[in-house]
Structures are given as C-alpha cells and as structure tokens.
C-alpha cells in the first residue's frame, strides 16, 4: 500500500464531525504545517486579517508571521516568489484572494511554475499550491466574480483541483500540498459556510478520482465545484418529478477521471455537464467531448452543457443571478433532454 492509500484507508467515518468548508481548508493547512515545516502560507491579508473570507483565521497565531506571510499588494510578485521558494525546497501555499487575479499571475504561473520542471530537464521541481476562489452571486461585479478554472486547465504542467464539499476540500488540499507539481486549488467563495462531515486528523483524497455525489438512473449531471450543490438541488426536484439523476463530481479537472464519467454516461444515456465558468471553450466543452468520445454509442441524446452566459458578470442582483446555472435551469434542461427536445 502506498502512503497515500494508507492515508485514504485511515479516514475513519466515526471520527467525523460537521464543520464548514473554510474550517476544512484551515484544518488541512494547519495539519500540514504541523507535519511539515517546509509548508508556509503567503498572500495578501493572510495573517491578522485571516483573509477577507476569514479562511485562515488563527493560523498566524499558531505559526507566526514567518510562516504566514502578509505580502504587499503584488500578486505576480508573491506568486513568482513562491516559485523560487518551491524550487529550492519549500512547500509554499499561495493565497490569491480572488480568482480574477489569476489574470495578474499568469506569467509566473504559466511561464514559470508550469514549465520549470520540463525546461530544466526534470531537474527542478515547483511543488507549490495556489489557492484561489471562483464563483459569482456575491454582488462583486465583473472583476471579482469570475470562474477562471478553464484558463489554467488548458496548461500542461499544472494540476487543477475543484473541491465541492468540506470533506473533499480537506482531503484534496492535503494531497495538493504533498504533491510535487504546481497545483491550482479553486474554492467556491459562496460555499465557504457550507457544512459537511469531515474526519478529524489525517486523510487524503487522491487526484483523478471522481466522486458520485448521488447515484441515479435516468440522467447524469456532471458538475464541478460550486455547481455540485446546484446539481444536487436539481436532482432533489427531479426526484420529486419521478426522474432519477446521478450527480458526478470530477473533483480534479486535471488529472481527469474519464472512466467514472464515461461509465455514468453509459449507464444513464443522458448527460448534462455543468460548470460555473463560461461555456465557450470552457470546462464543459472538454468534459462533454470526453464523454461523447467514450460513451457515444450508449448515448440517447447529445451531451448538453450549462455554464455562465457570455457576459462579464453584472453587478445588479437581478442580472447577476441569471447569468449562472441555477437548479431551475438544470431541471428544465433535463426534462427537455429526456423528452428528446434538447
């Protein structure tokens, strides 16, 4: 048994208690920082403020300002700094307050972190984790509400993680910190207060293993991150209407668990892929292509996709709320799909 498998086996459900998504993230970080002194946190307002979302509250009190490092407002700067530190033996966890700021760090992330291992002939490694957020409906408008996971999923050399529950967040973040590659870890900013069962102590969830969040027979809803809860709510409503929906969460966009996605598609014959990023050239396009490729002869209808509308996220709540998929939209599309009308 590998160390990772042993850790997975060590997760004992009886030791679980209910905590929030942000507590799960904080617990994973704290446990990893206690376990491995090479792990440190760097970013804006990570120390006394504990980030604007209060995800890191208490870390600086335990680990001090040397390992929970407040930076000047300089996203490209501290991401590049983490590349240098990771390359020379540290395990930095970069905190990038809003996913929109990926635009600011793309050079360091894409041209340095993702390529250093390859360009050095495998001699230099960049084991950093970049934690950031995604998700709209926080009334933060076009420059603070984007879901840019597709951008980094396009880049060879990066691992992309999209946990949807507190349990997944803790287990996947531990795997990310122990991984020898650069990992981009997306947290749904609207999901920080979501609660779920999380085991105390050490456990890890391997990358590239999807999770069936709800088994079903008639339709597969493949959903990522923030959209898993949307799909589960839609599945509840569909159940009331006599439709059995299976909800599959890939959990990591790269590596991707194609087998679980394809197997579910073969079983139900109907698939809708849901991701909060833009549909065009997006995560849903890749997942739909993978499913169509693997399950084509078992499908009763084309694979459908749901993502954000093609508009910068507007501010007004009445506008913002309709730009991203909702349970109602998923239910309506499912019914049309099953009726052969989609």
């Amino acid at each position, binding site marked *: 048994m590998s160390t990772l498998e042993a850790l997975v086996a060590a997760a004992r459900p009886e030791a679980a208690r209910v905590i929030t998504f942000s507590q799960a993230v904080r617990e994973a970080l704290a446990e990893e920082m206690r376990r491995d002194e090479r792990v440190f946190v760097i970013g*804006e*307002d990570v*120390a*006394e*403020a*504990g980030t*604007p979302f209060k995800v890191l509250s208490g870390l600086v009190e335990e680990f001090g300002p040397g390992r929970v490092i*407040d*930076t*000047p*407002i*300089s*996203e*490209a*700067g501290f991401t590049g700094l983490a590349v240098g530190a990771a390359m020379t033996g540290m395990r930095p966890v970069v905190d990038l307050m809003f996913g*929109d*700021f990926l*635009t*600011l760090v793309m050079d360091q992330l894409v041209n340095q972190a993702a390529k250093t291992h390859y360009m050095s002939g495998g001699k230099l490694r960049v084991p950093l984790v970049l934690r950031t957020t995604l998700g709209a409906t*926080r*009334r*933060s*408008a*076009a*420059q*603070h509400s984007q879901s840019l996971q597709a951008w980094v999923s396009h880049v060879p050399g990066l691992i992309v993680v999209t946990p949807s529950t507190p349990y997944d967040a803790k287990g996947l973040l531990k795997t990310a910190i122990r991984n020898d590659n650069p990992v981009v870890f997306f947290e749904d900013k609207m999901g920080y207060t979501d609660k779920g069962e999380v085991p105390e102590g050490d456990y890890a969830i391997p990358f590239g293993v999807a999770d069936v969040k709800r088994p079903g027979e008639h339709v597969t809803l493949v959903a990522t991150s923030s959209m898993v809860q949307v799909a589960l709510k839609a599945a509840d409503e569909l159940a009331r209407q006599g439709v059995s929906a299976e909800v599959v969460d890939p959990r990591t966009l790269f590596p991707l668990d194609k087998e679980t996605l394809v197997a579910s598609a073969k079983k139900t014959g109907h698939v809708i892929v849901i991701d909060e990023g833009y549909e*065009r050239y997006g995560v849903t396009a890749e997942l739909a292509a993978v499913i169509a490729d693997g399950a084509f002869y078992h499908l009763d209808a084309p694979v459908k996709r749901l993502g954000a*509308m*093609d*508009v*910068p996220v*507007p*501010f*007004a*709540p*009445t*506008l913002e709320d*309709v*730009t991203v998929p909702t349970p109602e939209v998923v239910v309506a599309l499912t019914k049309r799909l099953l009726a052969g009308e989609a």
Partner: protein
Amino acid sequence: MILESQLFQPFTDEPIAVTSESGEWIAPFELDLGPDELRRMYQDMLLGRAVDERMGRLQRQGKVSFAAPSGGHEGAQVGIAHAMRAGHDWLFPYYRDVTLPLAIGVPVVEFVAQAMGTAADPSRARQMPYHPSSKALNIFSAASPIASHIPPAAGCAISMKLRGTDQVTVCTFGDGSTSEGDWHAGVNFAGAQGAPIVFACQNNRYAISVGFEKQTGSDSIYTKAHAYGMPGYFVDGMDALASYYVMREAVQRARDGFGPALVELLVYRYGGHSTADDDSRYRPRAEVEAWRKRDPIARLRRFLTRKGLWDEAAEREAEAVVKAQVDDAIAQAQAAGDVALETMFEDVLAEVPERLVKQRSELLG
C-alpha cells in the same frame, strides 16, 4: 525641472501643510481663493462624508452590497478635485474616492444609483459600488484589481500629449497600489514620455490589513518619484488647502508641458478597508482615535471660522442641505427601479453576437 515661480519644493522631509491644526494660515504665500470657493470646498467635503456614511448604513441594512469607507480622505480628495478642470481633464480614480467624483460634478443620484445598482445608474448596474464612471466628466471606471488603472492613466496622458491638447490626467490610488508591477510600469513610462499626468497617492498606511512598514522598505511613497524622473511632493492630506495647492501646482506644471509628478497625500481611513473588513484585527483603536482628532473637515471649518466665513448657523444650514440632497438622491435612485434584464446582453461587443442573441431569447422567452 524645477520652476522659479513655484510655491513648493519637491522631496521635503516633512509633509507640506498650509494651515495648522487649529486652522491658522501658516504658508509663506498669500491665500488666493475667494470666500465662495473656500466654502464650496468645505461643502463638497460635507457632502462626500454624508454620502459615504449613508452608503455604509445602507450596506448594514442590506440595501447596498459593498462600501469602501472614505472618511478621513475628504481633505485630500477635495484638494485634488478643485485642482482639476472638471470635465476637461481626465480622472482615473480608485474605489475610495467619494468626495472626489462628487466634487468634480458626478450627481449624487448617479453615485448612489451606481452603488445600489438601479436603473438610474449610468453604468447600467454593471460595476461594483464605489466604482462610478462618467463619460461626460472624463472619469474612468475605477478598477477592482489594484493598480491596473495606472498604465491606462499613463496611456491617456500620452494620448493627450500626442494629440496636443492642454488636458491633464490625474490618477489616484492608495499606498497599497505602489507595490504592484503595473504601478511601476505606468509611472516609469509616464516619466520616460514626459506625459501630462499627476499621480496622487492617498497614503492611509494600510493595504487592507497590511501596514505600511510591511509593504515597502522605503519610509515614503513620494521619494520613489526620484527614480522615475519626476518631482515627488509630500503633503499633509488632512489639510484640504495644502492638498489643493500642491495638486494645483502639479497639475499646472503638467499642463504647461513640464511632465508628470507624484504627490503623496498622508491621510487615514477611519473605517475598515471595506464593509467586509474587520479592522479591529489589525489596527489599535487608539491609533484610529488619534487620527480622528486630526479630521480634515474640522480643520477647514476652523480655518473658515477664523476668517469669518463660517459659523454655527452656516453649519446647521449646510448639514440640512446635504441631508436633503442625499435623501433625495436615494429616493430617486430607488424610484428608478431595477434595470431591465435585456440590457444585460448589450455592450459586451459593439454589436450583440449571435450566441448572446440566443442566450437572451432563452432567458426572456
């Protein structure tokens, strides 16, 4: 280049002030502002504070989603505004500017409607609160990512130079911005090009929670001007008149073809970074209270009172006028109602593309 006729020297060790805390005129030159202009500056500050405080209250009531408290910045902002030719010069503001856009002429109803995201918002309910813009008044839409407006501001100024206009660009930001690469790129290029721009830093010594000493090894912002080939002025931003006079000189200098300047206005924000921030985690209350005692509004009021231009009755009347203005603006903004859903699909591109036409018809039926 330093001009003989100028009132101020750059790179002073102490912040430039022209009035004392008790409101005495302490500058070695004569005041050349008339009573009306002085009173207008004071009233602009009262309005800015009233709007800001009301937006904070509306945020707590759930009627506005976000506010970036501006209290303590009014003196610097009114000085910047009055140093500009409103509607002629370009302003690249940042999200803590409230008194500044209002003093330039943004109607209160537009500021409030923008914050509330109603149909009375000229930016069509698309931007975060505290991010007003105005085509009519040459005001750029404030950026949420820090300092990403600095290179566009420099580009705007270079455009003015190329087109041979006598416009000046004024670009504001906080101390936090100066750590960003974009800040250095923009300021450097403006210096290299001799662009007509004034970079006005409202230094309140905190980048959200991160104190000034953690942001830079330097003990000031204005000294960075030296490296970019422009004068750097250090100003007491709690002194509205000092802010005005130094900005006026920097703007005039740029207009006359002598290139950019960097002005550091030392201020303090009384509130948190935003309504989502708990500043008690990182700032001692005694520090906040000490700065409140240096309030820019109270200081200008003392100055006006000493000159016989203001009294209790004027204060009461001005407060009543401002309150009515804000009440009225909020009522108008609310009365305008929600923006229509179909407007959301416009302006992504010059024409609505086919995909959006389809998405619009799916939504609206």
